[in-house]
């Protein structure tokens, strides 16, 4: 970030008075971060800021203190380290170490003692569970699971509280899990799975990894659950699904489902083994809510921007999802994640519609084309979001859905800026590009101009690299369009982040 000289009084005042260009604000804040003098000048220029700081100091001095002495972080880190290294140490002060660390350490110890011959697999399983438990974020009250049995399919909250109402079939399953000493209140969690494993005296374990998924399969003898598999997404280690086989060969499958809208009922059942989603509550969700949930589910898979997946709302309100280029496992994941959303159908594309995987990039040209393809895909996604959820539709969404929509927009807008930077870097290897501030149109929605510009850049890059070498003027035009695209992406980011 470039340094600037001490800013003038006018410029410092402008920071709080008017909307300065983003680059200027960034430079000013960078300067204030490193210059005590100007930070103090700012307090003089804007007394409200100084007064706020003074109030904070007054209040800060009287805020409650921590109720307990602070834990010894070094001891706690060493305890985590012992668990990671599977050193059988049970002593030591527990202090404020989260309970899961103790359980996992015990599980690792048990595995090391009882299953020496297959210790490496046991350790692999325990290490995966340890990492998964530490990485899994706390779930919101709206998180839900799809539960499937041979008799029925239903939705339930991901984590049950003591007050959650319970359908009849859920009560029966709860009792089976209780008999197996498996925590039914939070069944799709690495910590719960690890705790259950720790109690099993005689077990064998397999860990398999393929198609971006890691599956831990534990076969137990002597318990009510004879086999339990937990599948984790290998990229972020979040639990994707779990399967439990009981001694009578009955089974229960549990998978993550899209979050419930804020005002929906926590639980409802759907009979049978339906391939598509069933109504989850008596209060029907709006089409916009369902479309958003569908797009969020697609987005959560990391698909949508790079892998072409069409989400179409039919005139009768049905939502049809068509994955054009998904592998089999990913398609199964997609179907699982869409369960629980009303009236959604996953359509398998005809062989003629199916798109081939992009070849892996090998050289500079492919990298540039890949980067510009990624930009076009992401701009297309942002444009679809803008078209599907204009301000008046967005206003009808629940607060939680609005937050989800904003987060998705912000995430992709920032990723788009990253994609553009990548393309500029890749292009610079062939020929330096001069980017400058561009004149942006007023009036037109930014997302439309953004999509047009992304498509134009994509076409120019393809033409320069794949079709003809291009002369200096073609590179100059590309530089101008990229400048426009970069500025539009920045403006879009600011709009959605506001």
């Amino acid at each position, binding site marked *: 970030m470039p340094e600037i000289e001490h800013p003038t009084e006018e410029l410092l005042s402008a920071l709080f008075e008017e*909307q300065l260009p983003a680059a200027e604000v960034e430079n000013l804040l960078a300067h204030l*971060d490193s210059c005590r003098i100007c930070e103090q000048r700012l307090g003089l220029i*804007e007394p409200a800021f100084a007064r706020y700081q003074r109030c904070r100091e007054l*209040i*800060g001095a009287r*805020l409650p203190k921590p109720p307990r002495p602070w834990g010894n972080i070094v001891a*706690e880190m060493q305890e985590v380290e012992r668990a990671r290294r599977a050193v059988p140490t049970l002593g030591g002060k527990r202090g404020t170490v989260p309970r899961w660390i103790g359980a996992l350490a015990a599980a690792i110890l048990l595995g090391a003692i009882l299953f020496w011959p297959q210790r490496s697999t046991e350790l692999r399983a325990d290490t995966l569970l340890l990492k998964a438990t530490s990485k899994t974020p706390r779930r919101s*009250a709206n998180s839900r699971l799809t539960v499937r049995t041979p008799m029925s399919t239903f939705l339930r909250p991901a984590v049950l509280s003591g007050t959650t109402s319970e359908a009849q079939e859920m009560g029966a399953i709860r009792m089976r899990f209780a008999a197996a000493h498996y925590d039914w209140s939070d069944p799709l969690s690495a910590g719960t799975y690890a705790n259950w494993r720790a109690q099993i005296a005689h077990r064998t374990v397999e860990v398999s990894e393929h198609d971006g998924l890691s599956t831990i399969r534990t076969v137990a003898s002597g318990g009510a659950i004879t086999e339990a598999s937990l599948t984790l997404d290998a990229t972020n280690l979040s639990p994707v699904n779990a399967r439990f086989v009981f001694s009578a060969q009955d089974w229960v499958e549990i998978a993550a489902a899209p979050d419930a809208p804020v005002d929906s009922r926590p639980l409802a059942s759907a009979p049978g083994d339906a391939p598509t989603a069933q109504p989850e509550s008596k209060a029907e969700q709006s089409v916009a809510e369902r479309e958003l949930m569908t797009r969020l589910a697609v987005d959560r898979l990391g698909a949508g921007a790079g892998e072409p997946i069409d989400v179409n709302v039919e005139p009768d309100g049905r939502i049809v999802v068509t994955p054009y280029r998904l592998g089999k496992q990913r398609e199964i994941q997609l179907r699982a994640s869409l369960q629980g959303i009303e009236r959604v159908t996953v359509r398998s594309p005809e062989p003629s519609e199916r798109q081939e995987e992009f070849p892996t990039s090998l050289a500079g040209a492919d990298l540039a084309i890949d980067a510009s393809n990624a930009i076009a895909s992401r701009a297309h996604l942002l444009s679809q979001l803008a078209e599907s959820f204009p301000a008046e539709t967005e206003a009808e969404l629940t607060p939680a859905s609005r937050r989800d929509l904003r987060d998705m927009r912000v995430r992709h807008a920032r990723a788009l800026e990253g994609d553009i930077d990548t393309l500029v870097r890749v292009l610079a290897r062939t020929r330096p590009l001069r980017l400058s501030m561009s004149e942006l149109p007023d009036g037109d929605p930014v997302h439309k101009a953004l999509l047009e510009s992304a498509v134009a850049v994509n076409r120019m890059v393809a033409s320069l690299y794949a079709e003809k070498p291009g002369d200096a003027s073609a590179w100059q035009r590309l530089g101008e369009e990229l400048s426009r695209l970069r500025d539009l992406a920045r403006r879009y980011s600011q709009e959605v*982040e506001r």
Partner: protein
Amino acid sequence: MPPVSDDLSQTAAVQHRVADVYSAARDGVFRYLLALGLDAARAQEVTQDAFLRLYVALRDGAAIEDAKAWVYRVARNAGIDSLDRNDRESQYSAAIADTIASFAKDPEQELIEKEWLEGFQDAMENLSPQQRACLELRGQGLQYWQIAEVLQVRTSTVGEFLRRGIKQLKRWNECRK
């Protein structure tokens, strides 16, 4: 595979790094969580958990450029997650409200600028959660780029939140004159 002694020294280096950040930043993180609306016990638990997560992430090889901003971000996310929805919507800290109320009972209240505080709570409640977060994090000594890291926005957006926040505070300040 690196020799065991290398791994041990690497572990010690990570523990050193986390311990340094812990002693320098834990009180600030704790106060920030109080301002976010957590009670003291929960704020302490989330604070400690955030530093342990930092350790696990660093041991897993995560490239964390600024550990302090990372801890604030993790603590903020966990803190917001642990609030129930109503608290999340109101986003105003009971701990701060109680602290402000305690000034009125203080026999030495004449000695402190109590008039400044009288409208402070109202002014704070009029700020959006992002505006409040920017001001609070700055108050905890974070740099503007670190605040951007915590809130996962651009630095210029932090500037925009501040500008709007200060605009609100100016109204309060002018009323107090």
